[in-house]
């Protein structure tokens, strides 16, 4: 059974259709990239996957069960999302933010115990955020905040990790660390990863499969070599590109021609 499967999903904001007849399925332990121009429905699709939006027609199934039938807490135990940014109006400390990832696993009155703190510690170790665990979240740089949010998602111990442009603020070193971490979690813990990105080369290098969205429809879906072609990019993004092969990995590599 696929981990996630979308069946003929239609969705619209007010009267404006944003998603039309979208179907796909993602198996456990796959890494999938969602790409597409602005307004093509990438973030909406992520929100339908994690059940914060529900399709008008069609079904979004997680582990074979419709997202509408899971409780919020049950979904949060399976799926974590790293948002682009988060509000930081009230002064919480970085560790407290990561600790919030434990919420779906705790009951109402319980305080976090040793095990929760251990999980949080590990998540922060992996994301290189321990150094500022006791600093205020809102006083961190954008890249540091993003790593804290990644740590929070890891502390959730999800089966599926959704990333919404989660690497944009990371410097090269942390970007490469993060990608290595994703690979490692993917192979060691069968973590399924779905990431939205504007960086087509990132998608081509790291995704097992790519979903190319174009005005609310799936324009192409498949292995990077099947999706990333000069013709597809020209049609969807309206830009001329050169697509050749990365000499090391043999995966498609795209260069802008303007």
């Amino acid at each position, binding site marked *: 059974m696929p981990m996630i499967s979308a069946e003929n999903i239609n969705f619209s904001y007010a009267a404006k259709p944003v998603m039309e007849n979208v179907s796909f399925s993602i198996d456990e332990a796959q890494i999938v990239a969602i790409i597409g121009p602005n307004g093509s429905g990438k973030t909406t699709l992520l929100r339908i996957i994690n059940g914060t939006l529900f399709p008008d027609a069609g079904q979004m199934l997680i582990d074979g069960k419709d997202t509408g039938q899971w409780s919020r807490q049950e979904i*949060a135990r399976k799926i974590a999302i790293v948002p682009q940014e*988060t*509000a930081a*109006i009230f*002064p*919480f400390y970085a560790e407290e933010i990561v600790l919030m990832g434990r919420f779906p696993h705790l009951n*109402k009155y319980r305080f976090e115990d040793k095990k929760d703190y251990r999980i949080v510690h590990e998540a922060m170790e992996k994301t290189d955020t321990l150094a500022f665990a006791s600093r205020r979240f809102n006083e961190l740089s954008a890249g540091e905040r993003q790593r804290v949010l990644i740590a929070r998602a890891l502390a959730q111990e999800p089966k599926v990790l959704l990333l919404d442009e989660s690497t944009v603020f990371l410097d090269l070193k942390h970007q490469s660390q993060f990608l290595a971490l994703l690979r490692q979690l993917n192979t060691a813990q069968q973590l399924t990863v779905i990431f939205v990105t504007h960086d087509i080369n990132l998608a081509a290098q790291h995704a097992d499969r790519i979903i190319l969205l174009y005005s609310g429809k799936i324009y192409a879906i498949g292995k990077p070599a099947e999706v990333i072609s000069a013709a597809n990019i020209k049609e969807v993004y309206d830009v001329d590109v050169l697509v050749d092969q990365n000499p090391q990995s043999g995966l498609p590599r795209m260069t802008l021609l303007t």
Partner: protein
Amino acid sequence: MPIYRRVTLSRVLQISALMLMIFVVICIVSLSLGSVHIDLIDVLRSLVNSFTGKVSLSSQEELIIFSVRLPRIIFAGVVGASLSLGGVVFQAILRNPLADPYILGISGGSALGAIIGIVIGAGSFYLGIPLLAFVGALATVFLVFAVAGSVRGPLSDNSLLLSGVVVNAFFSAAILFFLSIVNSMELHSITFWLMGDLSGASAKEIYVAAFCLIAGFVLLYAQARKLNLIVQGEDTAQQLGVNVERTKQALLIITSLLTAVAVSLAGIIGFVGIMVPHFMRLVFGSDHRLLLPVAALFGASFLIVADTIARVVLAPAELPVGVITALCGAPYFIFLLKRKSH
């Protein structure tokens, strides 16, 4: 700049115990102060006697302590705690550190109810004015929710805030209208009510308010961790497993009732509901599992101190307690501004 310390059950209990001790000391000192001064030793002796059941209300001092000052102090504490809890929750839900429990127009609605009560002479009936004020407060809550909800779908923060502003503005106009037509006797009691006044409540009303406070606190505390998540943004809270819409509705109903009870009995006591939660966040951080109990205890202590000052300054005459809290408000915000600029 406070350093980070983990919020654990033992830390919550320790700090709450400390705040409770401060609260008790303030109560005892407040019992001794007033137009008649009673020695602290005598206050303590009377309190000890009361526990052993040997209280003799024949002595004038004990009469003052137990039938005049103690109910009043309990009342001030209950109102202070209710408003502070209201402030904590409204600030969190609206993600606005300067929101107060009156922000959705509860003050305006209950003021209008109370003023109508004063004008039509409902004061001569048992619970007449508080009941009208309570009805006014509840009507406002429904009105604000209806206006905000009619905008579209789920309650968005901005539509709630805006409809609060609209409803409050309307009530201010109505209040001004009544102020301009009433006679001077009524004007006096309206003014006291508008500035907040703790002198009027009966013992029964105080018990009701105390019961609401305790029930409200228990219900709110069950949502404390969810509040932490809601403060991070509704999307985030939802993604982390909170049913935001339902939680928000529950929280708004509980705090609106808590505020409505406090306002209908004590009038509009300003600044407590902003200052106390805000200050407690500065000192103890933003985790609501710690914030809710300390804000309740500190709010209670603060209003008891303010009310004691209101009783003592012009003794035997009294000031409305709202004057004292408002006087504390201005310097507090100047302190905040200074602190920000460093």
